[in-house]
């Protein structure tokens, strides 16, 4: 799975060196480029288009020199108060240009918004089909894939599900487009912020689209107002406003292995540029955590055998969701009263028992005092790999929690 940094708000395309350095130092190797700045308004589009385009090309060269790979381009969602036919031409020009730039940069995907976004159902399909098929020719020439993305509509200030927010319908669209092309030239970009604004069940959404999802835009918001914030930062009363559980479950279920695009432009704008390097490092750690959660089984698959540390709720959740597939040899706990008992089918042993496990056996800490326990084990001289298990985003949960905990 690739971790991709959306550059909006981070890079000044006229002077990109500092931004590229910050991104590189934070550990990002892949970036997504939005062409929003090319199409701020009609006047600017006409007057400065050429110079902006040159800035982008210059940026691509500088990124390449720093080993930063541009993997995704985004065509802006252009909205001008002009005649539909004129607007259509501008949208088409933007899309063709983005596809070309993506090809030149060696990118993989171009996210292209619909030419006609107000229609729905069969009408939307009829109106947009030819637009996308025409772009597909250019996509073939440049060896890139076109991604469609779930949209919302603004109905007098209230966000309503727009085109492709019905995942089942979007899947049908993609299959038809690819069938007409005779190859997989179209895929899906799942935007978590849009799903959240439309109150959608992201598990169901991801499951309906399956392997058609090529990239996921990770952004947080309060579910009511458009924003692109760092995941887990839109909170109320100590709880996140975005249903990350459903997202992680959904992506895990479909064995998602595409790109995670981190879009945090509003968080970046809110922090001082002085804190940008630290913010980007933390943002990278956040998206890596989400990736780790999606791929939680990868760490289990690595070992021939495993043991758990902890005989409480987290151990119970492990056994419920993974106990059968990855059965531990035993679990251990610091609570002497549990030693020798059976918990969820596992014998509970004292930590000392870890001295006798095979050297290639992984120890999974099933307790939130991860670092404290890890230190305890290292101080004991345990040299086996120690991994942290986490049950916040389990495929399912018990209906209750253990009272003794």
């Amino acid at each position, binding site marked *: 799975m690739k971790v991709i940094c959306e550059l909006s708000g981070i890079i000044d395309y006229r002077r990109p060196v500092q931004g590229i350095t910050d991104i590189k130092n934070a550990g990002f190797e892949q970036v997504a480029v939005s062409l929003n700045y090319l199409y701020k308004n009609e006047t600017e589009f006409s007057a400065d288009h050429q110079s902006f385009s040159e800035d982008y090309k210059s940026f691509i060269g500088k990124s390449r020199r720093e080993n930063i790979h541009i993997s995704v381009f985004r065509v802006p969602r252009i909205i001008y108060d002009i005649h539909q036919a004129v607007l259509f031409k501008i949208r088409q020009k933007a899309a063709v240009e983005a596809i070309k730039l993506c090809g030149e940069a060696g990118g993989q995907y171009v996210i292209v918004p619909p030419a006609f976004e107000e229609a*729905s159902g069969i009408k939307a399909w009829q109106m947009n089909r030819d637009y996308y098929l025409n772009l597909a020719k250019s996509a073939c020439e440049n060896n890139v894939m076109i991604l469609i993305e779930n949209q919302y509509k603004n109905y*007098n200030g209230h966000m*309503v599900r727009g085109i492709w927010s019905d995942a089942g319908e979007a899947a049908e669209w993609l299959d038809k487009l690819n069938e007409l092309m005779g190859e997989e030239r179209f895929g899906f970009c799942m935007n978590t912020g849009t799903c959240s604004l439309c109150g*959608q069940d992201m598990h169901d959404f991801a*499951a309906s689209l399956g392997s058609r999802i090529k990239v996921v835009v990770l952004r947080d918001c309060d579910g*009511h107002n458009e924003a692109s914030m760092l995941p887990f930062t839109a909170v109320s009363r100590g*709880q*996140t*406003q*975005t249903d990350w559980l459903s997202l992680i479950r959904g992506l895990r279920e479909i064995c998602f292995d595409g790109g995670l695009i981190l879009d945090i432009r509003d968080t970046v704008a809110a922090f001082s540029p002085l804190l940008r390097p630290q913010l980007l490092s933390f943002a990278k750690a956040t998206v890596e955590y989400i990736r780790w959660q999606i791929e939680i089984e990868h760490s289990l698959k690595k070992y021939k055998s495993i043991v758990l540390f902890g005989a409480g709720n987290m151990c119970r959740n492990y056994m419920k969701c993974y106990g059968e597939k990855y059965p531990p040899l035993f679990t251990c706990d610091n609570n002497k009263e549990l030693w020798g008992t059976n918990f969820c089918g596992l014998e509970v042993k004292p930590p000392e028992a870890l001295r006798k496990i095979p050297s290639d056996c992984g120890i999974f800490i099933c307790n939130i005092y991860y670092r404290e326990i890890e230190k305890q084990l290292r101080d004991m001289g345990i040299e086996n790999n120690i991994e942290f298990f986490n049950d916040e985003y389990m495929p399912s949960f018990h209906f209750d929690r253990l009272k003794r905990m």
Partner: protein
Amino acid sequence: MLQIGIQTKNVIFDNNPEEGFELLKKSGFSCADFSLHSYLTNMSLYRFELNDFFNKSDGELEAFFKPHKKAAEVFGIKINQLHMPYPVYIPNGSKELNDYLFNVVAPKSMRICAFFDCPNIVVHGLKLARNLGSEEAEWEYTEEFLSTIAPMAKEMKITICIENIYTSIGNHIIEGPCCNARKAAERIDRFNDKYGAEVLGFCFDTGHAKLVGIDFEPFITTLGSRLKVLHIHDNDGISDLHQIPFTFTKSRENMASTDWNGFIQGLINIGYNKVLNFETSPVLTSFPEEMKSEVLKFIAKIGNYFSGKIKNNS
């Protein structure tokens, strides 16, 4: 013209149901949505608190509601739909509590519905996706529940109407059971085929739909004739406020932020000719008691407006 209905909560009172039904009639309503859920509220159930209302025998319950039924008949108000108490299952509730909801409250609600000669009963699907891991698994439990009352529904000629409801993450409302029209339509058809009768239908709740960004027109159009009853109300898109339609604006232009045109168009698309029912009981506690009659008349007038738009464009 379509018939106009409203929920009985905050209008019909047990000590004098005639007064309430008379008020509804005078205000312009011809139908009522009987708020059976008022007798065992969700607030108390989530606190694991049961009262003894449903401990009454069927005979006692009929005797209790006889004055209500008679008053409705006297004033020509048809009880077209009834709301079953909800939730019907509490994930962290005791087995005794959940058994009571499944085996006592639900069947007794069905019999009360039949007693009122009411053709539709609205139920909430079980909110279990978080625990079970998926909406599909959640629906299996809901279907299991529906199966316990479906034979009664067939015998009593009642349609059980599943409603689009929501769940919450922090204070952000997101879709809960029955928010996917295509799935709902497929499930309703499959269920009805199984029972050889129209035992399952849909209750479209405008307020809940708005909260989770559902586009009204395609949703209603997809449901088609499976749509049996309505819960019409409005909110700010953030909280489930159950207020009067056209109340909420969110932009400087001050246009309604709820897509009532889409609602009307959806009903036109499917040839809806049933009751336009309002679920706006909180309005009656927020306005002064002295204005209750005028408020009810105003709500009925909005119903007439919807009706006119639907009929004139059908």
